[in-house]
């Protein structure tokens, strides 16, 4: 078992191979559809001018992302009324929707680990090679179990995106995941997809 402490060094990232189980400990940020679009539009492609608290939020998340991890997750959160936030259910969401953005976000913010489910495509795999970075697959749907590894909610940015889409700053301890894309160009997802395509062709004779 590999214990990964955030932030992660490039050497530690390069040591990880597809198939390795890992336990992640440290402070990380959740971010999914709205967050990725916001980062790309406001700070990377700059197709919109920063407004409201955009610049403050960027300053706040930059040190967390540098060498750190972003988690594709839209949690169920308790304590919304009192702001005494607790993650009640916090499994991964499907990562492939961030494929158009993820590689650029990794390069811009020096993100080293992307946590989600379902895997990602060639653009993210290329960014994993450069960053260097890894994709860590959490167990989809295992939300109450995964919430146990979230020890504290330290804060939240862009709550106006809605609870699922906000960027939550969380402290995790022994968060369980499996490396399914590594910094050496290997992807379990590409392998399974190719193999299942062959079997499909055999089954339907196409």
């Amino acid at each position, binding site marked *: 078992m590999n214990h990964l402490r955030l932030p992660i060094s490039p050497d530690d990232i390069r040591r990880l191979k597809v198939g390795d189980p890992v336990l992640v400990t440290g402070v990380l940020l959740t971010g999914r559809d709205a967050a990725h679009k916001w980062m790309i539009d406001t700070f990377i492609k700059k197709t919109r001018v920063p407004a409201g608290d955009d610049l403050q939020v960027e300053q706040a998340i930059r040190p967390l992302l540098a060498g750190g991890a972003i988690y594709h997750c839209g*949690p169920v959160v308790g304590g919304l009324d009192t702001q005494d936030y607790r993650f009640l*259910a916090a499994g991964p*969401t499907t990562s492939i929707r961030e494929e158009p953005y993820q590689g650029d976000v990794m390069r811009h913010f020096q993100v080293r680990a992307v946590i989600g489910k*379902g*895997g990602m495509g060639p653009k993210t795999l290329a960014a994993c090679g450069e960053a260097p970075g890894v994709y860590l697959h959490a167990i989809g749907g295992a939300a109450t179990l995964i919430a146990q590894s979230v020890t504290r909610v330290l804060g939240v940015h862009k709550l106006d995106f809605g609870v*699922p889409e906000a960027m939550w700053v969380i402290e995790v301890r022994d968060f369980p995941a499996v490396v399914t894309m590594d910094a050496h160009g290997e992807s*379990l*997802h590409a392998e*399974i997809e190719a193999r299942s395509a062959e079997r499909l062709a055999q*089954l339907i004779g196409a």
Partner: protein
Amino acid sequence: MLDLPGALLELIRLTSTDLPPDVEAALHQARAREQLGSAAAGALDSILENVALAREKSSPICQDTGTPLFYVRHPAGWSPRQLREQIRQAVAAATKKAYLRPNAVDSLSGENSGDNLGDEAFPTIHFEEIEGDDLTVELILKGGGCENVGAQVSLPDDRLNAGRDLEGVRRIVLEAVQRAQGQGCAPGILGVAIGGDRGSSFAASKEVLLRPLDDVHPETELAEFEGRILREGNQLGIGPMGFGGETTLLGVKATDLHRLPASFFVSVSYMCWAYRRRRMVAHGDDVSYS
């Protein structure tokens, strides 16, 4: 007197936090088929541990509590308008209690309503008047990951050499499973509708998911079709979470609808392993759940 909003709140709590026994049993069987120490076996271990923990803590099995799909069968004389109002009350209350995640997003403004109440179609509620005195409400919580990998194709489809017959349907459905990979949280359950128009076809492909996992379709042709897709889907080797393995599908449920001469739709609704569906029956003031 029957406290219907309270009874409906319990239906939502149960659906979100307590996986039905037939699904849990199928997951245990899947676990037994996977190789010891494999990623697939590890995934199923975590899944089963999570199912037990969610039940014990009365906490959502999955954070994506999905689109609430209600199927209401009511005796004559009940008002669907009032029932809708009571269901909406229960959904908002369940969101406040964190059994449901606020999921209703305005498609134009991007604003989340915060209480899971959107327009008329959110939550989705189907009404049907039936004989007898019992009120039956069934609920499916269907997450977005699996909803996104659903498919609809109009036959014939030249790419797959799929014609307007059950063999053509088979090709389309197997391709949908292959394209879904692990994205829909495999192992999944397929709802397949053959025929209808685009709308009725997709609706039927969801409603068929109300059937128990271990039932057998009364029509031999469709019973054989379901068995074959289940067997062949599992031969694709996608496995739990798309990690590779023996179990890609836990079940296949199919139905057929009349269609126009010009249209032959095949609709596939993919349900994730967190196959959250529960039933409530109100008989007078007595309410039972299954």
